[in-house]
C-alpha cells in the first residue's frame, strides 16, 4: 500500500532566487511542494509508480503502480492562512484497478502493473478514466457520494429484508446527508483484444472512441462497447522471423478525431488518417530523420527506438523521446525534427554498460507544458530535464528528499561531461542508475509538475516571489 506523506510549504526568511526556471518564456524558480509515498529505503516492487497523469482541468492527478493500484490525488484550494500556497494535492481515491491473472492457454502470468492511465474529458459530476495493464483495459468511474437513501419499504437500514407481515404502511425513501465517500467502480472491461503487451491507450477527441496499441497492432474501441473493437493497424509479418520493428507508442490527435500517430522501434513515426481507409496499415505521413552513419554502434537500433510520442496541445507539433534525446516534429515536415534536445548525451560512451545492466531498455516518457512552450522528460540519478522551446535553454533538476524542504527552490544540477569536474558538478560515473525518472506530468494550465521517482511522487510548482 502506498503510504502518503505530505510536506507543507512555509515561507523561508532569506530565500534568494538564484537561477532561472524553464517555462512559458518567463523566468522563475521551481520549488518543492509535496512528496508522496513511503520513506523507507527498502522499496517494494508493487509500490513503484508506473504512470502519472493529470486530468484535463488539472484538478485531479492519477498515478498507477506495479501493484495494479490507482491512486488519485485531488487539488485542494488554497487556504486563507497560507496565501502563498496555491493548494496541495491530497489523496482523493485509491483502488485496485488490476489483479494478477494467469492465462491458462498460454501458460503465462499477466502482470497487474498499470501501464497507462488516460482521463476522459469530464461530462458530469463524475470523473472517468481508462487504465490498462498488459492485456486488459478498464473504464473506471470515480464519483462522490454524500447522501444516502433511507426508509426503504422492503429492507431495513442494515439492508436485511423486512418481515412482510410487519409492513403496515408504505413510505417514501428519503435522502439523508452522510460523510463524503468517493467511489471507484469499473464501468467497462475491454479484454481479449490484444495478443501482445499493450503499451499505449489514447482517448479520441470525439470523446466516444479510444485506441489501444500493443507491439504489433492498434485497435479502435467505442467507450460503450466491450465485446468488439476494430483492428486499424497490424504490422505483424506473416513469418515472425521477418519481424524488424514493433509499435512502441500511439496517440490520437488532440483535435482531429480521424488522425492518430504511432511510433516504432526503428525511430520512425507514422501518421494515419482514418478517413482514408478502414485499415490504416498504409500511413499518410512518415516522419523519419536520416541516421548519422558516423555515430553507428552496436546499440544504434536500441537508442533510436522511440519510447513515447505526444502531440502538443495545439496539435501542430508532436514530440518523441528516444533513449538519449527528445525531438519536436512539425506535422508539416516529415524529413527531420524541427527541434532536437539532448537529454543525457554523456551516456553515449556508456551504452555497453547500460546494455549489460538493462538500463538501455528503460522507456522514458515526455510531456508538454500547458502552452506548448516547454517540454519535460526524465533521466537517471532522479534527474529530470526541462527545455524551453523559445529560448532553447535547458535545465536539469533533481527530485530528492534532501531538497524536499518546505518551499525550497530546486537547485539546477549539472553533470560533468569530461575534463575537469567543477564544483557542484556530478561526474557521469557517480550517477545512480537505479534512481530513474521515467514518468512525469505537467499540469495542463499551471506550472505544477508531478514527477515519479521510483515509489515517490514529487510535486513541484513555480515559486511566487
Amino acid at each position, binding site marked *: 500500500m502506498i503510504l502518503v506523506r505530505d510536506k507543507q510549504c512555509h515561507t523561508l526568511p532569506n530565500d534568494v532566487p538564484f537561477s532561472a526556471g524553464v517555462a512559458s518564456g518567463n523566468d522563475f524558480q521551481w520549488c518543492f511542494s509535496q512528496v508522496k509515498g513511503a520513506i523507507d529505503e527498502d522499496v517494494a516492487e508493487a509500490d513503484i509508480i508506473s504512470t502519472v497523469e493529470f486530468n484535463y482541468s488539472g484538478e485531479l492527478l492519477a498515478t498507477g503502480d506495479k501493484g495494479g493500484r490507482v491512486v488519485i490525488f485531488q487539488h485542494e484550494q488554497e487556504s486563507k492562512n497560507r496565501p502563498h500556497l496555491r493548494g496541495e494535492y491530497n489523496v482523493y481515491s485509491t483502488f485496485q484497478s488490476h489483479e494478477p491473472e494467469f492465462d491458462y492457454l498460454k501458460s503465462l*502470468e499477466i502482470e497487474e*502493473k498499470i501501464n497507462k492511465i488516460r482521463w476522459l474529458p469530464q461530462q458530469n459530476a463524475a470523473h472517468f478514466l481508462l487504465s490498462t495493464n498488459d492485456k486488459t483495459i478498464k473504464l473506471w468511474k470515480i464519483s462522490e457520494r454524500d447522501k444516502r437513501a433511507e426508509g426503504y419499504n422492503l429492507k431495513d437500514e442494515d439492508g436485511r429484508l423486512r418481515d412482510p407481515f410487519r409492513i403496515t404502511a408504505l413510505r417514501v425513501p428519503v435522502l439523508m446527508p452522510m460523510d463524503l465517500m468517493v467511489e471507484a467502480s469499473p464501468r467497462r472491461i475491454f479484454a481479449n483484444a490484444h495478443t501482445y503487451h499493450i503499451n499505449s491507450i489514447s482517448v479520441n477527441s470525439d470523446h466516444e472512441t479510444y485506441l489501444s496499441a500493443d*507491439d504489433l497492432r492498434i485497435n479502435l474501441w467505442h467507450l460503450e462497447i466491450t465485446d468488439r473493437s476494430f483492428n486499424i493497424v497490424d504490422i505483424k509479418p506473416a513469418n515472425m*522471423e521477418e519481424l524488424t520493428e514493433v509499435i512502441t507508442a500511439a496517440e490520437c490527435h488532440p483535435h482531429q478525431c480521424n488522425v492518430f500517430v504511432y511510433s516504432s*522501434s526503428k525511430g520512425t513515426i507514422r501518421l494515419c488518417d482514418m478517413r482514408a481507409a478502414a485499415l490504416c496499415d498504409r500511413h499518410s505521413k512518415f516522419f523519419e530523420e536520416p541516421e548519422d552513419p558516423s555515430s553507428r554502434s552496436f*546499440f544504434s537500433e*536500441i537508442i533510436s527506438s522511440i519510447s513515447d510520442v505526444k502531440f502538443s496541445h495545439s496539435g501542430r507539433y508532436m514530440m518523441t523521446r528516444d533513449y538519449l534525446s527528445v525531438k519536436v516534429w512539425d506535422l508539416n515536415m516529415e524529413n527531420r525534427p524541427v527541434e532536437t534536445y539532448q537529454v543525457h548525451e554523456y551516456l553515449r560512451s556508456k551504452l555497453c554498460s547500460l546494455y549489460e545492466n538493462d538500463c538501455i531498455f528503460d522507456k522514458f516518457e515526455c510531456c508538454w507544458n500547458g502552452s506548448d512552450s516547454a517540454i519535460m522528460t526524465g533521466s537517471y540519478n532522479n534527474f529530470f530535464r526541462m527545455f524551453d522551446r523559445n529560448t532553447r535553454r535547458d535545465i536539469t533538476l533533481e527530485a530528492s528528499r534532501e531538497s524536499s524542504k518546505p518551499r525550497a527552490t530546486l537547485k539546477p544540477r549539472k553533470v560533468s561531461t569530461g575534463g575537469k569536474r567543477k564544483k557542484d558538478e556530478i561526474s557521469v560515473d557517480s550517477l545512480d542508475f537505479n534512481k530513474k525518472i521515467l514518468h512525469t506530468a505537467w499540469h495542463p494550465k499551471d506550472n505544477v509538475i508531478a514527477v515519479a521517482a521510483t515509489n515517490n511522487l514529487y510535486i513541484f510548482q513555480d515559486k511566487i516571489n
Partner: protein
Amino acid sequence: MEMNAEAKRILAVSISKLYASRSQRGGLRLHRSLLVSLVMKSARDIYHSTVALVEKAVETTASTEEAMEAMDTAEKLPEKQPEITDNTEDKENQRPVAKRPRKRPGKVSAVPDFLPEKRARLEPGEERHDTAQSPSVCRSSVVTETRSALPLLSRVIPAF
C-alpha cells in the same frame, strides 16, 4: 582483436538476456527481444567482418607481388576514368569489376570458415584500426550465409 572481443562479449550478454527473458514474469517482451536480437546481429556482423578484414589484410601482406599488383591497379585507375561514363553510380559500380580480373580470387569469400592460424598472426593494433575506421562498411560486407554458425542471432523468438 579488441573489437572482436567486444563483439564476442556482447554476443554472450545478448544470448543470456534472451535466455533470461523466457522466464520473465508476464511473458516474453517482443520489443525487448527484438532489440536484443538486433544488437546480436550487429555484434555478429561486426565480429565476422572484423575477422574477414583481418584475413584480407593478412592475405595482402603475405604476398608482396600481389600487393604491388594492387598498387599498379590503383595508379592506373585515374587513367581509366575518362573512359567511364559521367554517371558516378556507374563509376562506383565498375571499379570493383575492373579490379576483379587482376586479383586472385579471395580465399575469404571462397572459404566459409575462418583460418585460426591467420588470425593468430595478426597484430592487434592493425585490426582495431581497420574496424574503427569504417564500421558501416564492415557491416555491409558481411556474409549473411554464416547464419548457421549462430542460428539464434537474427531471429526474434516469437512470444507465442
